[in-house]
């Protein structure tokens, strides 16, 4: 099991090649093979969850080998408490997404090949411990995403796909430049993230500041933090359901993951200088702005997309506080948002598959038409608005606990969104599921077994984490405390070594 991370990353690639060999009209076989390729990583993720050492802050299951010795580029994979949650989330969501895209009929072969490539790249991003490797996976992810939105998306898919592509690519270039700057700053030059972190004390203040900002823009585009968020509503609305789930469930997390993995430990002084404006203020703005925008939407998917912007704001605010509660809350929120938003998009997809539109005012009284569906839906909705007893409540509460110690004003502003979120969620619920039955959809069939299978695992996680959050907190806590310490003590360390 030493190479478990390699297997998790590359089994989907192997699956992609198998799919490539299948004749293109064998649709069901393609679907089954693709699903089969995502099951081993899921099983391995479960194994990882039970065998993960929760006491250490070291990287675990590390594999290392030289890749390009001349440039000191290595192939290093490894996980710690921060990445293991994201690996779990990715491994969980990929089979679910493949199940939910069972009804795709156009270019089945291409769709599944691209999806498996995307799966591998996402897993790679979370496992990579070599900055170069991280960057490769980060960029490779773009290509399948572009095609998946652009070919299988909605009416304005081309615009959405290219917008997503260009935004992320621009961020990628900034990351490339920052990566090289870090590489040449260290002597001997290296991309090994562990060394880059260990040498964090030697980077000058000005260097840290500039590189921090450049990396932050790259990651902020992915989060997406205001004002780099405009690609998200477009991409989400146009993408097919499964891809929206991946976008919201995994890709957005990469932004905050990158900040915690790279900016925090490698550029601690930069973090201290920038965290307030770049993370806390923008995060709070994200929370309120996203919620207000969500309230004004007439398209269910767009509403969920804006709610994502709002919820990712909690992550930013939480990690900006540099308190144990805040940073733990932030990562827990990353995980929770991944599961809850995935549910929301899947639920919207269920209605869309039947009605072929998502207008909020086009429905009514669905609760009496589709009772099972409404039951599952209510879990997701109440989780999203932060009802105590469901998972998001814990993470949001932790974020607010941290934030209150950090800045009272921001906390109060951010807290107003609790009301706003309840507002748009309940209003949506009321307009679509309650009220008189819309005769047009009076005989809409309830959820199928396949759809239930995609939703139930997520619902169970949401329920369990609502009462037993330590199932995740135990995993992440030691690592996050260590990262938090690095940043919090950076100034003291810098003063001791007299950095300019």
């Amino acid at each position: 099991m030493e190479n478990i991370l390699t297997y998790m990353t590359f089994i989907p690639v192997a699956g992609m090649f198998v799919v490539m060999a299948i004749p293109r009209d064998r649709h069901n076989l393609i679907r089954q093979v693709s699903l089969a390729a995502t099951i081993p990583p899921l099983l391995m993720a479960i194994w990882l969850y039970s065998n993960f050492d929760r006491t250490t802050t070291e990287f675990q299951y590390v594999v290392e080998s030289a890749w390009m010795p001349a440039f000191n580029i290595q192939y290093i994979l490894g996980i710690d408490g921060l990445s293991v949650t994201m690996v779990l989330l990715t491994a969980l969501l990929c089979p679910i997404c493949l199940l939910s895209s069972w009804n795709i009929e156009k270019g089945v072969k291409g769709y599944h090949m691209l999806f498996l490539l995307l799966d591998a790249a996402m897993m790679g991003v979370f496992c990579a411990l070599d900055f170069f490797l991280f960057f490769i996976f980060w960029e490779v992810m773009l290509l399948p995403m572009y095609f998946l939105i652009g070919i299988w998306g909605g009416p304005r898919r081309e615009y959405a796909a290219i917008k997503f592509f260009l935004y992320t690519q621009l961020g990628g270039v900034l990351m490339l430049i920052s990566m090289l700057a870090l590489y040449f700053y260290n002597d001997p030059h290296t991309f090994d993230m562990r060394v880059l972190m260990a040498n964090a004390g030697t980077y000058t203040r000005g260097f840290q500041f500039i590189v921090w900002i450049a990396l932050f823009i790259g990651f902020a585009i992915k989060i997406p933090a205001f004002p780099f968020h405009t690609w998200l509503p477009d991409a989400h609305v146009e993408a097919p359901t499964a891809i929206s789930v991946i976008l919201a469930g995994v890709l957005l997390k990469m932004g905050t993951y990158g900040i915690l993995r790279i900016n925090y430990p490698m550029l601690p002084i930069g973090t201290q200088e920038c965290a307030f404006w770049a993370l806390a203020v923008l995060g709070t703005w994200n929370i309120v702005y996203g919620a207000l925008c969500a309230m004004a939407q007439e398209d269910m998917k767009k509403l969920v997309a804006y709610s994502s912007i709002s919820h990712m704001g909690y992550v930013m605010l939480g990690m900006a506080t540099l308190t144990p509660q805040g940073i733990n809350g932030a990562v827990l929120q990353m995980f929770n948002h991944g599961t809850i938003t995935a549910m929301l998009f899947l639920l919207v997809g269920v209605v869309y598959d039947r009605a072929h539109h998502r207008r909020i005012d086009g429905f009514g009284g669905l609760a009496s038409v589709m009772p099972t569906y409404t039951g599952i839906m209510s879990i997701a909705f109440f989780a999203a608005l932060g009802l105590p007893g469901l998972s998001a409540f814990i993470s949001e509460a932790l974020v607010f606990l941290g934030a209150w110690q950090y800045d009272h004003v921001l906390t109060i502003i951010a807290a107003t969104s609790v009301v706003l979120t309840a507002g748009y969620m309940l209003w949506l619920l009321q307009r679509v599921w309650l009220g008189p039955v819309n005769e047009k959809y009076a005989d809409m069939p309830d959820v199928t077994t396949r759809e239930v299978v995609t939703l139930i695992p997520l619902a169970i996680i949401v329920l369990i984490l609502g009462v037993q959050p330590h199932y995740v907190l135990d995993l992440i806590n030691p690592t996050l405390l260590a990262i938090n310490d690095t940043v919090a003590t950076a100034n003291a360390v810098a003063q001791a070594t007299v950095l300019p």
Partner: protein
Amino acid sequence: MDLGNVESLAYSLPEGILAVAVLVVLMLEVLVRRKDMHGYWALLAVAGACAAGAMQAGGPQGWLFNRMVALDSFAIFFKIVLGLAGVGAVWMSLGSKELEDQNPGEYYVILLACTLGMFYMASASNLLMAYLALEFVSQTSYILSGFLKQSRRSSEAALKYLIYGGVASGAMVYGMSLIFGLTGSLDYAVIGERLAAAEGNAPVIFVALVLILAGFGYKISMVPFHMWAPDVYEGAPLPVTAFLAVGSKAAGIAMLVRFFYPGVSTMGGDGTWVPLENVDWQGLMVIVAGVTMTLGNLAAIRQDNVKRLLAYSSVAHAGYMLMGFVVLSNQGLQAMLFYILAYYIMNLGAFAVVLMVLNRTGREDIQAFRGLAWRGGALPACAMAIFLFSLAGLPPTAGFVGKFYLFAAVIHEHMYALAAVAGVNTAIGLYYYARIIREMFLEDPQEGDPVMVLDMHNSVLVGALVIFTVVFGVYWAPVSSMAARSLLFIGG
């Protein structure tokens, strides 16, 4: 090693093969009635020249023909690349419908002669030889670009090429004469020594270097000497366009580097180079590099003809390559050599796909690519996507690795502004490459769009180039070490 005329012949096998092949194909044209074999003879010859060039690696290095020509690992690298460019061009010509009813004998003779000239461009170590080689390549390129005699566009391309070329080489000769006046020699090594000693002449030297840049820059389509590129690329027969885009640019770069590095700069420690005092051509070239890539990319955005789009993209790529030129370090040169090879693979590949579409549809506008992925064989569309992503610099492709090396070289010298400009350009590049990809994958084919039927000949070339693009994007150690080994100049 410093050989006279006769002894040098023993070390001129690649050039010899090409020269003999020119004569043989010319004779075959007269003596043999069957015209369809000429191309294969040409292919054999140019592949042989390439192999002979590769075999020179590791052999003795030195001056040939009384210090007119250098035989060093730098020249050998370019002989291999140019030989490969020739192979690609001949292969594409054999599979081109455009050239089917043209006179094949003449065509291949001129193509081989042009390759021969490029070999000498890469190895000339004397201004006179450099000028002759460059003119030789120019003259043959004019004929090649005007080879479609019935096509007005082709003739127009040849004429424009000729006029621009005449002006540029005029300026270059003037610059060379200034250099000769200052130093009394045409030999690079002597020029280097005497310029370093000449004090107070900095403005004249600067002017001379700028004038010489006009000639070299015109060959690599560097702004502001790029104006010919779009028209010529559009008008010339497609295999010729590909040959000019890849071969002409590589030969021009070789010439530029040999004159500006071992010629007028001196080697410093640590693999860096020291330019002449008070002659800031480096600063000038940083600006030129930035402007070249930006202008090329911005102009490419609005093109509807794929050949024209690739022409502007090749201007932009000249700018990227110059990033490796301006840093004055071996690291930069290595990055540049790597990029040239990567550029050869991906750009030739892109042109090969355009050729397949052109053969099938007779069109070369972007709309001809509409729904290409859904029109029968998916190879051209998928291959084109890979080549374009490589040109845009996305991993895991050879183009990304090349760009990565260039960025690394520039950032190592702390030229952050140039890196930022190049970064923005990468995003612009992606935008217009994605236009073609969008057309191929995101649009549905319409009634009347012909189904793609794959022919073996072109598919082999495209397939091979795709494999290299991806393989070198994942495992590029052999290429980068080959580029690193090729930095030994004779008489530097």
